[in-house]
């Protein structure tokens, strides 16, 4: 199997994110599968940015610690990442800027001289570096030139040619000076059409497939790109995308829209979600569907804004004052993100309660290959299920008709009452944040209070019966001596680690949860009955999912691998702990 990684680094403001994504897209267009990851400080200029891409013939689930190609646009890149280099690593740098003493496969490219000789901007070093990288990997330059043409399409031929010249300079420099170091790793393969998507892209796409018509958000890393993507699509999709004054307005706007009859969602990260929590509770008692996307980052408070953590699971599960049902989903990768996002909108409508889609910076901002066919197929089988929406029609034929109070909160066996779209003639009702009667009017009666609390609580049982999904099992759990237990984005690094362990002759399995809350105690107990070495793997410091599993299902996992430095797991570090 052909598998390698490529990493580029440079000063913030030098287009590292764009360059990395272009590399991912090139690999994808040439028929390979990728997984990438970006690291950047919470600064626009001056810090160190880096971007790495793992490329393979087969599906890539996570990162790889040893670096095969390190492209240094400055000396920091080398210094910060040299501990991950090995003697066969290729290191590309400009020897006019700094020199490297250690022994690697050193490739010096005169970035600065090329820029100067061709009257380019310093930022165009990254284009030279891409050209040089493609040459080293045996790729055709055309695929880069094609992307440059698309990117600068609106700026005209002159700009396109100018940029392509720098790509060509880097490419030719390698061909002329380092032909012996060229490896055929990125030669064009014929393969089916592939897409390069982040978890946030996948959420945006899932919400469109689900017919979400209103998305409201306040910018907050690492969730903001959902807002950008949906806003850039809105004239095409017809969705209304609103950047409101704060997260409180965001979720209340979404609730108003949902009450009025459209599917609505909001997106944020932990701090912004903290502001929304009051209205999560409002959605609970008014039984208003809403999908809440939370991309976690390390807290508390401002924490480390551009890094990753799974630290808000219990906060989400317990969010909102008072008792009411809620559903929490946590996709493990981009494909699951598309499926579960679309499912979240159905669940919100079916159970008329808040439904959460939990992501984190690692899943939200990393790109992974998703096949075009997968999306087309999923979109064609997905069905919008609005749940119990009344089919009462406007009664306008009868003049002087007395309008009736619709029983919005009618007591039912499954806990779900019919909704009626406001504006339907002949009826009225109120959605009430106070405890209420079946018809929506405020009540403090103990009898009515109990009936409404119990009605709402029954929705949890209905969900567990109809829509809860058991964790997915990877590997052969019967033969495995080690069984990992995880949720959300840790799936990828564990799958990579399992592959490495298999190569070493170790038998492992993974129980991966993406339907996080509520949990079905009866079904789950059966799954953990075997005497196995269970290891909980979580990107937080207190093993929050382990605590939830103990609280909800009485399952106690003793052994834990936890990481909370803001970085995702390296598969290698999981392997080393087994």
């Amino acid at each position, binding site marked *: 199997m052909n598998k390698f990684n490529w990493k580029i680094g440079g000063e913030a403001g030098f287009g590292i994110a764009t360059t990395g994504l272009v590399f991912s897209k090139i690999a994808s267009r040439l028929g390979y599968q990728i997984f990438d990851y970006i690291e950047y400080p919470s600064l626009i200029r001056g810090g160190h940015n880096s971007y790495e891409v793992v490329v393979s013939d087969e599906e890539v689930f996570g990162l790889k610690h040893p670096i095969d190609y390190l492209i240094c646009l400055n000396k920091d890149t080398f210094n910060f990442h040299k501990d991950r280099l090995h003697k066969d690593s290729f290191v590309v740098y400009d020897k006019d800027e700094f020199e490297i003493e250690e022994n690697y496969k050193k490739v010096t490219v005169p970035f600065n001289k090329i820029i100067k000789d061709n009257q380019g901007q310093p930022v165009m070093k990254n284009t030279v570096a891409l050209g040089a990288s493609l040459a080293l990997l045996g790729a055709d330059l055309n695929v880069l030139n094609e992307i440059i043409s698309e990117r600068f399409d609106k700026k005209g031929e002159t700009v396109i040619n100018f940029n392509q010249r720098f790509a060509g300079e880097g490419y030719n420099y390698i061909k002329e000076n380092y032909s012996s170091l060229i490896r055929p790793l990125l030669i064009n393969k014929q393969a089916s059409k592939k897409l390069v998507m982040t978890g946030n892209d996948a959420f945006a796409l899932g919400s469109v497939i689900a017919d979400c018509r209103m998305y409201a958000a306040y910018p907050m890393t690492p969730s903001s790109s959902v807002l950008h993507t949906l806003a850039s699509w809105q004239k095409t999709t*017809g969705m209304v995308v609103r950047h409101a004054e704060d997260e*409180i307005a965001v979720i*209340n706007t979404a609730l*108003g*829209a949902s009450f009025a009859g459209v599917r609505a969602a909001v997106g944020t990260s932990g701090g912004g979600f903290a502001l929304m929590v009051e209205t999560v509770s409002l959605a609970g008692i008014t039984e208003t569907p809403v999908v809440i996307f939370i991309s976690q980052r390390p807290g508390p408070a401002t924490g480390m804004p551009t890094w990753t953590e799974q630290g808000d699971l219990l906060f989400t599960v317990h969010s909102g004052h008072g008792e009411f049902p809620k559903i929490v989903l946590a996709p493990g990768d981009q494909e699951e993100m598309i499926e579960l996002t679309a499912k979240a909108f159905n669940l919100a409508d079916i159970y008329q309660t808040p439904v959460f889609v939990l992501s984190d910076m690692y899943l939200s901002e990393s790109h992974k290959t*998703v096949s075009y066919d997968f*999306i087309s197929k999923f979109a064609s089988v997905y069905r919008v299920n609005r749940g119990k929406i009344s089919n009462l029609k406007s009664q306008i034929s009868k003049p002087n008709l007395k309008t009736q109070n619709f029983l919005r909160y009618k007591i039912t066996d499954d806990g779900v009452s019919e909704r009626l779209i406001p504006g339907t003639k002949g009826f009225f009702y109120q959605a009430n944040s106070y405890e209420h009667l079946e018809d929506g009017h405020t009540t403090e009666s103990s009898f009515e209070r109990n009936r409404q609390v119990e009605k709402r609580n029954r929705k949890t049982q209905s969900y567990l019966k109809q829509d809860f999904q058991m964790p997915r099992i990877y590997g052969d759990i019967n033969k495995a001596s080690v069984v990992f237990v995880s949720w959300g984005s840790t799936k990828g690094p564990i799958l990579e680690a399992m592959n490495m362990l298999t190569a070493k002759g170790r038998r492992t399995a993974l129980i991966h949860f993406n339907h996080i809350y509520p949990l079905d105690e009866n079904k789950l107990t059966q799954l953990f009955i075997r005497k196995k070495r269970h290891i909980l793997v979580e990107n937080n410091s207190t093993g929050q999912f382990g605590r939830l599993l103990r609280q909800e299902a009485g399952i106690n996992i003793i052994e834990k691998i936890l990481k909370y430095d803001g970085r995702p797991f390296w598969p290698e570090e999981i392997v080393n702990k087994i």
Partner: protein
Amino acid sequence: MLIKYNHYNRYNSYKNYMSSINDFSGYQPTWCPGCGNWGIGSAVKTALVQLNLDPSSVAMVFGIGCSGNMNDFINTYGFHSLHGRAVPTAAGIKLANHKLPVIVVVGDGDCYGEGGNHFIHACRGNHDITVIVHDNRVYGLTTGQAAPTSQKGFKSKSTPDGIIEIPVNPLSLAIVSGATFVAQAFAGNAPQMTEIIKKAVEHEGFSVVNVIQPCVTFNKVNTYQYYLQRIYQIDKKHDVANQEEALKRALEVNQERFPLGIIYEQEKPAYHNQIPQLGSGKSLVEKDYFDNLSLLLKDFL
């Protein structure tokens, strides 16, 4: 310049039906005897009848407070929201179905205190909603603490030595923030209030009706007598489209003079009218399912 009212009711899609006050009447109100809310409640219902609306053809959003309790006393499609949050809820309803008139009923603490940020930004957005603020300059439902509109020095349970802050000026705040219809009514003058509410609902854009209202139980300073000596009718020569003139009126509150009537009105495109995807004639609720994914997927190639 005086804006000419177009008497065509822009929401009138229900011509055969003549509603009555009775149709809108819900539970018997629990407001204190003598409370200004009674007058406001009946002015709202009268305005809805005279606008030819019926309980099915209007959405009302209520905040939390004595004013918000109107939710149970009036029959319409309603959303009894959270304290301070009624305005963004209403903006969401309007965006989803801009064919429904949306009316917000809130108090001064609700709208200018807890929800102050939302109020300012809803003015900026010129959302096509009508906000009726019950301004009694005190917190009634929580038994009489100082409000953002209380006069400096107002003594209450939470401010026993008198409130330190100066009051919010709702009218000038609305005018400078971008509201396109700003009016003031008095709870003791129901006929004028009814006319103002009707015009506010007819106005396309963000309309604010600040209703000055005595709280007979907890505000012993700003009583009916207090207001009767200090209110005055804005004369017909007042140019409602002139922002500076409007501000002059609004600032008269500093001299404890309270103008009644429409203080400011401008015709500007409402928020939803500036969203291209809502321009097709269909509301968001009515729109067709979008299924041309290939238009989006090209971004990921």
